[in-house]
């Protein structure tokens, strides 16, 4: 494997759902060891894009490859070792302890059909500690708050121990401290060689923690580049339809976004 080969590449990916074009001719390359952010307003196609990469839905045309190999060429088992995805879920209707959900993540690598092995259990312990979620393990998953459920689902994805980790809004519903914790964990993952692809709405966090950002609007790529290139007044105006100031903190290398309301026109 050459270092030039992208961990994940999308070529001309087009998706239609129910006759409506959701993604239109998307091209992207994600290198190993980076945190790749997908941003864009609601309904812009972020989740759909992640679902394509995780093989949950298939595009009508285009090609998605992992390290040069098309994703359709992987068996279910092999794919589950390459890619994990935290996607929207629905309530199960049964009471399941949170740790049982994290343990499910280990299923992709186990040979045993009945009990989990000691190695799996230590992986689960490690992941829970990393995410600072050990206090949740005995709780019924359906009774956790949305933010806590997010954390458990992230833990499940990490327990899969895949090279590529896909996350659909991993920090939604989390409070500020937990948002930062999760983003730090993603950075750690990336620096240990994993590839993290996530959708998110928090542009300030995206600017600080992502290596590259892809901005979608109505299924088209509107902006792509480093956070410095993407998180701009133009992005906010053209993609989000918001008038705002963007300030870059040179020391810490992150953007601050201050919305402009119609009232403070004179100050602008």
């Amino acid at each position, binding site marked *: 494997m050459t270092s030039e080969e992208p961990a994940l590449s999308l070529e001309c990916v087009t998706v239609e759902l129910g006759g409506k074009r959701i993604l239109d001719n998307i091209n992207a390359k994600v290198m190993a060891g980076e945190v790749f952010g997908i941003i864009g307003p609601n309904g812009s196609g972020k989740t759909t894009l992640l679902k394509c990469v*995780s*093989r*949950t839905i298939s595009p009508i045309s285009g090609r998605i490859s992992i390290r040069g190999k098309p994703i359709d060429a992987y068996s*279910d*088992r*092999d*794919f*589950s*070792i390459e*890619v*994990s*995805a935290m*996607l929207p*879920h*629905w*309530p*199960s*209707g*049964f*009471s*399941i*302890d949170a*740790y*049982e959900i*994290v*343990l*499910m*993540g280990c*299923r*992709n690598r186990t040979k045993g*059909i*009945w*009990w*989990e092995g*000691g190695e799996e*259990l*230590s992986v*689960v*312990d490690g992941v*829970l500690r990393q995410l600072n979620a*050990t206090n949740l*393990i*005995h709780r*019924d998953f*359906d009774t956790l708050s949305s933010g806590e459920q997010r954390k458990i689902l992230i833990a499940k994805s990490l327990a*899969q121990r895949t090279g590529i980790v896909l996350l659909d809004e991993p920090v939604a519903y989390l409070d500020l401290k937990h948002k930062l914790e999760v983003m730090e964990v993603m950075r750690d993952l990336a620096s240990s060689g994993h590839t993290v692809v996530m959708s998110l709405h928090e542009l300030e966090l995206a600017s600080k923690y992502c290596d590259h950002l892809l901005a979608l609007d109505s299924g088209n790529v509107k902006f792509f580049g480093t956070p410095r290139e993407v998180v701009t007044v133009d992005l906010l105006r053209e993609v989000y339809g918001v008038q705002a100031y963007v300030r870059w903190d040179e020391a810490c290398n992150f953007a601050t976004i201050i919305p402009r309301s119609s009232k403070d026109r004179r100050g602008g």
Partner: protein
Amino acid sequence: MVETTIRQKRYRFVVYAAVLSLALLSLFFISVMIGSVWFSPETVVGVFFGTEGSSTITSIIMGYRVPRVLFALFTGLVLGISGGVMQTLTRNPLADPYITGLASGAALGAAVAFVMPGIPLYAIPIFAFAGGILMLMLVMFISRKAGSGPLNFILAGLAVGTVASAFLMIIITSASNASHGILYWLYGSFSTSSWSDLWTAAFIATPFLIFMLLKSRDLNILIFGEDHAKQLGINSHRLWVALLLSLSIAVSACVAFCGVIGFIGLVAPHIMRLLVGSDNRFVLPLSGMMGAILLIVSDDIVRSPLNPLFEMPVGSMTALIGVPFFIYLLIKRGKNFDL
């Protein structure tokens, strides 16, 4: 951390399994004693060890009671396990193994066999089995056309089941001479259970039963749906279909002989879930044992001399016993049933 939790859970499972096995064993022994004639424990032991002198007693116990109790045990096992599987597959805690219209299909098949001239009594199970499986195929076909997903599946089962019930009612009301037999079959009975019935049902159902138990870990993962399971490397659609077919064949094999016995498949998994949580590796085996216990007790009451005039259908007895128990648990630990 997680390891201690899991060890505790496994320990609890072993304790429950031991208690239920012991209960089953003693229940089996007591049930052989019970009947229109009561036998003493010594007589039963004597028969089992071949020291009983009376050949009449030996033939009553070995030829009639033991196969009957064992058939109830096996059917309870099948219904308990299948109920747990079906509730997880449809992600619906209110599902039972008959939700595919399997019960109405089997009943319709049996009813047809009752009213058609020239069909011998021993062929009724074949018709019932075929009816149940045909109904399942129809439901699977329709739900496939409607788009997969548990809800479509349940709705298709409801629709097809209703049509089958309608035909059943037409047959019952038009063929008055056969209607008693059909109704009796409909609510289930072990009064005709024989060794050959037991062997046939066990021969058909056991492989599927083992398959379902071996897949309990993967079944856990299906609780969050097919997409979720697929991401963990499980061929979820194939597993879903395989489990559904397995449970339907296993249940049909028993139901074909003893009739439609309700509530066991609904209640037994719930009782065990309240005690050991939702992990199917614990729930399914225990739910099978609980189903067997409930069904043996129901059958004991039905054939005990407490009601000497007629034998009640065992299906009504399972409801009379199982549902109050269920309601008690529901009220006591209702928080676990939040949808």
